[in-house]
Structures are given as C-alpha cells and as structure tokens.
C-alpha cells in the first residue's frame, strides 16, 4: 500500500515535468502543442548528442544538461517568434497542424540522424541508487530527484505567472493581443519568452527521462498524452493544479497497473475522461470570480 503511493508520487513527479511546459503553452497561451512529447525526446537526444561529443561521465552529464538549458530557451524563443506566433488565434487548428507537422519532422529527423536505436544518458550508476524506507519500500534516488525538480519548477512557475508583471502581461496578450499591444505590451516577445521558459522545462524533462529510461525517436506521442492529461485534469492556468493532475494520473495508472498491467494506462485515461465529464474545468482551475 505504502509502496503504491510512493511509486504513484514518483510517477506523478515525472508527469509533472512532462506537463509543466505544456501547461504553460496550452493552458495560458491556448496553443495546442501536439509536438510537446517530441520536443522532450528532441531535448533528450540533444543531451545524448552532447555526451557523444564530450564523452560520457557523471560530470559531463551534469555539464551537458546545464548547457542544454540555455540552448533550449533560445530554441523555444526562436520557434515561437518565427513559427508558432503565426498560428495563434481563436481557432485551435493552425497551431495543431503546425505542431503536428513539427512532430513528424522531429520524429523522422531523429530517426535519420540517430536511427531507431533506443538511447539513454549515462548517470554513472545514479539511476539505480535507492533509499530504503521502512516497510521494505525502496525509493529510487533518481525519481526522488525528479520529484524534487518537479516541485521546485511548479512553485517557480506559479510565482512567475501569478505574481509578476511578466505573468500578467502574458495572460493579457493571450486574451486580446491587439489591445495588449495598445497597452505597450510586445506580444511577440512575451510569447517567445514564455515558450523559451517552457522549453527549458522540456529540456529538463527530456534529460531526466533519458536518464531514467531509454528514449527513441518515436516516443513522443505517448509522453504528449500524459502531459495533456495532467494539464487538463489539473485545470487551466494553475501550475499547482498541473502538479495535482500529474499526481492523480500517476496514482490512477499505478492502481490500474496493479490490477492488470494491460489496463494501467487505460485506467489513467478513464480517470482523465471522468474528470472531464464531472469537472470539465479541471480539478483546480484558476479561481475566477
């Protein structure tokens, strides 16, 4: 029982990381980014490629991961500025199509460059280290790190978007771009900044994913769905909600897996649909009025 909850929290932490970037782009910018999972995979391959260049070692992994963050930021910034900005609007279709297209491009580009072999990032044994809890439960050090990073990232984002001028101008732009510009907010830059931040999270998620398991070019869509589910279960515009959504998804899957491994992910989907039916606004939507 304890093991169930511990493992659910670990899985939830991972899904939180997958979901935060999505929450930012989807929940706040209304951008349906169907390439999200593929960007995570791309980031992971970025780290893999980096390690191929400098040679694998524990220190190199940390170094490459840190170096990847600014690269991801610039990448996201540019992507939004030069591609995605052209797709925004009331109609979800353009962003959907463009990101779908990007997903296909990324998957096949990675396949071309790296072949379909699964890759992973060497952690120098860190990924198999664990802490023994009372009751015979062991907690992996890496999942614990993932959970910690997820909590920190959630807190940071929530603060950024609800308590700072940046967050405010950001939401203003997503509501009515023209008027926001009239107020002196530079919409294009605000979006680019947000996507840059989202991509930093994507990079973190990608690196940790590749440490934890293997990544291969076709992994993206699965990661995407989990991310979306966490975001929607949690409710729009609230990052704590996303965290809670990810935890709930993790728990639902864990319970499902234990009943029968074939139905674990299915159970997660069902919880997601149930939330939609009974609370379409999500569990913790940003309180409005």
């Amino acid at each position, binding site marked *: 029982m304890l093991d169930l909850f511990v493992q659910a929290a670990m899985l939830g932490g991972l899904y939180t990381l997958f979901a935060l970037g999505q929450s930012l782009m989807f929940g706040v910018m209304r951008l349906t980014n169907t390439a999200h999972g593929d960007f995570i995979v791309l980031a992971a391959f970025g780290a893999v490629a980096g390690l191929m260049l400098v040679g694998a070692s524990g220190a190199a992994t940390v170094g490459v991961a840190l170096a990847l963050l600014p690269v991801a930021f610039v990448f996201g910034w540019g992507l939004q500025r030069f591609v995605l900005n052209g797709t925004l609007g009331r109609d979800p279709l353009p962003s959907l199509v463009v990101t779908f297209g990007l997903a296909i491009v990324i998957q096949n580009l990675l396949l071309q460059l790296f072949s*379909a072999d699964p890759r992973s990032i060497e952690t120098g044994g860190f990924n198999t280290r664990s802490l023994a809890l009372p009751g015979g439960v062991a907690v992996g050090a890496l999942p614990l790190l993932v959970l910690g990073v997820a909590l920190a990232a959630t807190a940071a984002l929530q603060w950024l978007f609800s308590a700072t001028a940046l967050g405010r101008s950001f939401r203003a732009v997503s509501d009515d771009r023209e008027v926001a510009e009239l107020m002196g907010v530079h919409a294009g830059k605000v979006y680019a900044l947000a996507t840059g931040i989202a991509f930093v999270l994507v990079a973190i998620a990608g690196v940790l994913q590749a440490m934890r398991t293997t990544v291969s070019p076709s992994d993206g869509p699965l990661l995407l769905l989990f991310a979306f589910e966490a975001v929607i279960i949690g409710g729009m515009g609230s990052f704590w909600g996303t965290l809670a959504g990810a935890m709930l998804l993790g728990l639902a899957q864990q319970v499902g897996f234990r009943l029968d491994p074939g139905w*674990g992910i299915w159970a997660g989907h069902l919880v997601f649909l149930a939330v939609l039916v009974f609370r379409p606004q999500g569990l913790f939507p940003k309180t409005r009025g």
Partner: protein
Amino acid sequence: ADVVKIGYVSPQTGPLAPFGEADKWVIEQMKAALKDGIAIGGKKYEVQVLLKDSQSSPNRAGEVANDLILKEKVALVLTAGTPETANPVSDACELNEVPCISSVVPWQPWFFGRKGDPAKGFNWTYHVFWGLEDVIANFTNGWKSVSTNKKVGGLFPNDGDGNAWGDKELGFPKPLSQMGFTLTDPGRFQNGTQDFSAQIAKFKSEGVEIVTGVVIPPDAKTFLTQARQQGFRPKVVTLGKALLFPGAIEALGDLGDGLTTEVWWSPSHPFSSSLTKQSARQLADAYEAGTKKQWTQPIGFAHALFEIAGNALSRSKSLKNTDVRDAIAATNLQTVVGPVKWGGQGPFRNVSKTPLVLGQWVKGGKHKYDLVIVNNEAFKQIPAGGQLKPI
C-alpha cells in the same frame, strides 16, 4: 534482358528498425552476388531487389506488400522482422496468390497470429525460423544450469510476440510448470510503459529469481533500472527481443552485463552461405568491415532469405506464381542459418525450423559487450563459448 523482381519488406524505420538495420547492406551484397542473373526455365533473368520499409507499422507493411505485388508485379516476396511486419505481408501474399518467404518471427505468432488452420496450412506463404518450444527449451536449459528457487517472473507485452509467448496453451506457462518452474505473470502490458513498479512489486512479493519475457528495448531498460532502484535483484534475466541488439545493450549501461537472450544466428554458427560460400564468421566480419557496426542476428536471416529465393527461382520451371511456389515448397538447402526444408504435416508444411541456442552478454574486448553462447544443449553443433553466470 528480362527482369525478375524480388520484393523485400522489413522495418527500416520506427521502433522495430533494429530488425531491418542490416537489410540495406545485405541487399547490396546480394546485388553483387546475383549480378549475373538467374536462369529460370532455361532463360536468363536479371535480378532486381525492391526493398520496402514497413515503418514498423502493420498497416504500412500491408500497403507496401500490395504495392510490390500489384504494381511491381514481383515474382516473390521476402519479409522479416517481428509479426508486426511479417504477418501482414504474408497475409497480402496469401490473398493475392503470390509466393512469400518470411522469417525472424517465431512460427507460432506467424501461423496462429494469422489465424492459420493447422489442418490446412497456407498455400502461398512459407516461413523459416524457430518456434516457442525452442526458446522455452533454451531458456529453461540455461536456468537449470544455475541454482535458483525456480520462481520465474514473466514480462509479456500486449503485442504479437508477447501474446504468443504468454499464451496459456502455446506459450511459456504450460511447459514451465511441467518442468517445475513457477511462473508469475502479472498480465499483458502496453509497449512503452513508463513504469514497472506494479510488476516489480509482484515479483518481489513472490520471491522471483528469474525474469523472462519478450519486450521492446526501451521497456527492458525501464524495467531493469526500476528493478534495481526498488531493490529487486533477480539472479537471471533472460529476455527475448529487447536484448538482441548491441545498441540496446549499450544503452543499458552497466545493467547490460550478464543478461541472457536467445541466439538464432551468430558468427560461431557452423554454417555457410550457399550463395557466397562465406561462413557465418566471414559474413559477420564482412558486415562489420562494411558498416563499421557490430554484427547483429538478422544479418544471417536476411542473407538466408535471398539464398532460398535464388535457389528456388533457379529451380522454378517458369515465372508463373504456381511454379515459383512449388519450387519454394520443394526447397532443400544448406544456408548460412542452417538447413532449410519445408514439408510435413500441419503448420510444418509451411514452416522450416532453424536451430536456436542461448547467449549471454558479457563485457567484451573489441565491442563494449559481446554475445557469448552459454548453452547449446538444443543444438550441439554450435559451439558454446562459456557458462551461464548469474548476475
């Protein structure tokens, strides 16, 4: 000159791509070997090989097979690499009445997965590979050679292979219990599962010491890592599919050491090609020299498929479908994967079995890990390179 076309379908891209990785190289080699053409019914034909990518998708596999048959009008189709590719291609051939030779799928998923009727067999499709009975025999032979509590945990995904391996009648459960092993099977899981703690918890509570199954490489890594994290350390891990390819083992890092898997072909197999006369060792060396990559098991089978095709075509009376089919059915050939001969009753009318042994990945010299044959009880001619060591 007249041209005879041979179609070849395999997963070049997608998650199953390692299975098709060697095909391009093999086909290049074949082009050279067959550059003088083949005489069919007393007439010389130039040989053209058309390689199509199934993209690891059964849909796509069926589509390209149909293209090959209807548009390119190939004389026969070859296909290899998991039920996801071989089954739809075989089905398309059966329906369009074009001969087909398939491989790299244990014969049960190939035959029963296609809803074959053992009483009738198939008319157009022929298969060359081993079966689950062989893999079970090899795995258990290996396990018996180390001391364990004989408690086995099974990881069978919900795909063509997993369903066959885990099948109550045809798969692992029955023979294992007959041999005194207890199997813990938590159930079919989806490929790409992010989390195996449910299985690990179950294995731990059942005191499992041997883990087996047939999983895709990423899942193997996820499972092994989480098992280590959660303090589960089985003595033997013998997995099909996931551990076939050196790339996958390297991706496992230190966890790759000591894992065991089935070996269907290796450089130490005492066979040689009827076409190029290369021994298995020479073939593998040529591959490594040509591609700068470590050898993989599908090389031998891709090569053998062409051996069979070439041999059958040269014996065929004409290019008529039925003649080619009859020639295939009458094959009796020593290939680089062993002797190939169809015949017999039931499924065996369409299935020719090849030998199978057990291998273990050990830290190597030239390559990061080498696959060493550790149990050859099932086929003594293949020399063993060592003893199975518990992890």
